[in-house]
């Protein structure tokens, strides 16, 4: 089965006065249909850059895509212009961010913002690129003049659109949705706002939902509710999810497959069960050993010595070599490539697979 989205050898760098930071260094990742893939890594490992690159929202400059391909349903998104990209962004590929308050418009009511998303979806389904008066007439029985202007139209939610808006809020289990549509974002709690974002994203019926640290700003009881909701909706509306998180525990609670990133490299990808039963990369092993599991008190945590290297330093070898307990001489000479050691278990480490280093897949 061909993957829904396939990232191949993606490299992204950020230009700054202090030098060039390589945020993604030849990252490859496949996302299959109706699959929840979680990208895990510490701050600065490039996981958010990956999310932004996938949806074409990288700030260029300072960011620069050096090489690679992002194939979505067979189309390389990197070769599309901004106009063509908009056919995918927000519709086929939707995204929710860490801080919903900065993604929602503070001066529009919740209902109006969701209604706008629903309207745009209809407009696209209708094969139009703008909402004109003819479209408004047809779909909402709103008459010109002024109906073509979005803000004006938003205020006159037709009964049908209002119903659909309420339905999408019900889908994400917001209590009293008929009242919530008349509230402003600041009147909602963090968990409610994130649900609104999910409702907006899913109203587009996307094939892929990218969630960048969606629950990091939330309390644990709220986080549990939101993650549970995401997982349920994913199966209901048949979408794939790419969950970006720094929390290994969150990933292993909801993910089907986990991809571990370190300093811009994809170091290991496998099913969540394989990753926890037999982690292969020393960094993954370290990450698991230093996460308090809560199962036994004062189990010996094994911290990874040292800290993540500055992304501006140029390296030719494995980036984990300075912290790795198994580091060998050739580890710092040539970067190991991501190879499949078992069925769907990929790792970039010289400890696994003799062939590693003899061939390079992505230069």
């Amino acid at each position, binding site marked *: 089965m061909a993957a829904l989205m396939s990232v191949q050898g993606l490299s992204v760098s950020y230009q700054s006065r202090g030098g060039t930071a390589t945020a993604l260094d030849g990252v490859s990742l496949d996302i299959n249909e109706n699959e929840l893939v979680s990208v895990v890594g510490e701050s600065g490992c490039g996981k958010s850059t990956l999310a932004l690159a996938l949806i074409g929202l990288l700030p260029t400059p300072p960011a620069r895509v050096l090489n690679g391909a992002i194939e979505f349903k067979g189309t390389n998104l990197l070769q599309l212009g901004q106009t063509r990209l908009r056919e995918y962004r927000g519709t086929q590929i939707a995204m929710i961010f860490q801080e919903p308050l900065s993604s929602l418009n503070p001066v529009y009511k919740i209902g109006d913002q969701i209604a706008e998303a629903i309207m745009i979806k209809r407009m696209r389904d209708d094969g139009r690129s703008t909402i004109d008066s003819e479209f408004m007439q047809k779909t909402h029985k709103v008459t010109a003049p002024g109906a073509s202007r979005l803000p004006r139209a938003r205020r006159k939610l037709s009964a049908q659109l209002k119903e659909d808006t309420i339905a999408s809020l019900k889908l994400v289990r917001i209590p009293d949705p008929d009242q919530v549509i008349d509230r402003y974002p600041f009147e909602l709690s963090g968990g409610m706002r994130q649900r609104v974002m999910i409702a907006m994203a899913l109203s587009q019926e996307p094939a892929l939902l990218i969630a960048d640290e969606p629950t990091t700003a939330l*309390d644990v009881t709220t986080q549990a509710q939101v993650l549970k909701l995401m997982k349920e909706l994913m199966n209901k509306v048949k979408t794939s999810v790419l969950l970006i998180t720094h929390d290994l525990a969150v990933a292993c*609670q909801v993910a089907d497959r986990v991809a571990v990133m370190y300093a811009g490299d994809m170091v290991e990808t496998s099913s969540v069960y394989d990753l*926890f039963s037999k982690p292969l990369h020393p960094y993954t092993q370290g990450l698991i050993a230093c996460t308090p*599991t809560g199962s036994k008190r004062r189990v010996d945590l094994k911290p990874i010595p040292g*800290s993540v290297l500055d992304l501006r330093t140029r390296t030719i070898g494995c980036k984990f070599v300075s912290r790795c307990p198994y580091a060998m001489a050739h580890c710092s000479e040539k970067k190991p490539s991501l190879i499949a050691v078992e069925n769907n278990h990929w790792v970039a480490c010289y400890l696994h697979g003799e062939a590693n280093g003899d061939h390079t897949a992505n230069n």
Partner: protein
Amino acid sequence: MVKRMETILQTTDLKTYFPIQRGINPFSKTKKFIRAVDGVNMTLWKGTTLAVVGESGCGKTTLARTIALLTKPTSGDVIFDGKSVVKETTDPRAIYKNLQMVFQDPDSSLDPNVRVGDSIGEPLYGLMNWSKESVDAAIQRSLEVVGLSREIAERLPGQLSGGQKQRVAIARAIGPQPKLIILDEPTSALDASVQAQILKLLLELQQEYSLSYMLITHNIAVAEYMSDFMMVMYSGDVVESGQTDELMAKPRHPYTIALISSAPVANPWKRNLLEVDIRGEVPSAINPPSGCKFHPRCPYAEPICSRDRPQLREISPGRLVACHFVEKTA
């Protein structure tokens, strides 16, 4: 416990309210309060760690700041090392010799324009009146103890990584050789691999200097790993407290049960998160629900819960729960 234990810190009915102005009339009679800490009784035994856990807005940081004299309590008392810090203290420096604090964000607790060595030395001059030689020696010793090299003393905080900065903050706290350190979310700003280093360091320091810790955290796994005793707060109230192993093994308050089962566990075969059944969110501290503050979210709530505020009751030795229907969770 066989060993006779001494208390190092105790609070009695401690309340910290923050007044808030509603509207623009400064003469408005109806004053409202945020009840950040609403009558907390707690005990911290010498040489142990008490973890205070709860979600944001539950009052755990305000409790810590009140104990550390950074916020004035509205009523109630804090007894530290046998003395009331609220009534008897005229000079807080006498307290800070024995009570130090490590904050969540080292970026805001370290002066960006002061070399870290001077930051570590400052309390030694200010509190202990040490001579320059002994302060210099103490700076070197503190740095060594927290696992940093000596050259770091000459650097500015901006030149250090997050983990190094938090080590500096810990070095500054242990400098005056305190009896109690209040750790307010010491690892929340750090990455997983660095968090483990800091937690391990804190445990080693506790062993070596027989320190007492009051650990404020929202992370149940960290609390479980670090603490001997645990106290769960909800909207300004203590809802449950007891020994960590017992409390984690068998939580009794419905909120504690929800909190523990909502915490993601790094084990894909135990997907507790997808089975959690909790509704609603943390209530506002300005207009908290009547009676038991958890009753709108509680699966066991009955009419009495919205009427009477449950008091903390000892259900077994050392185990306190504030719930009208604690037998339902037995």
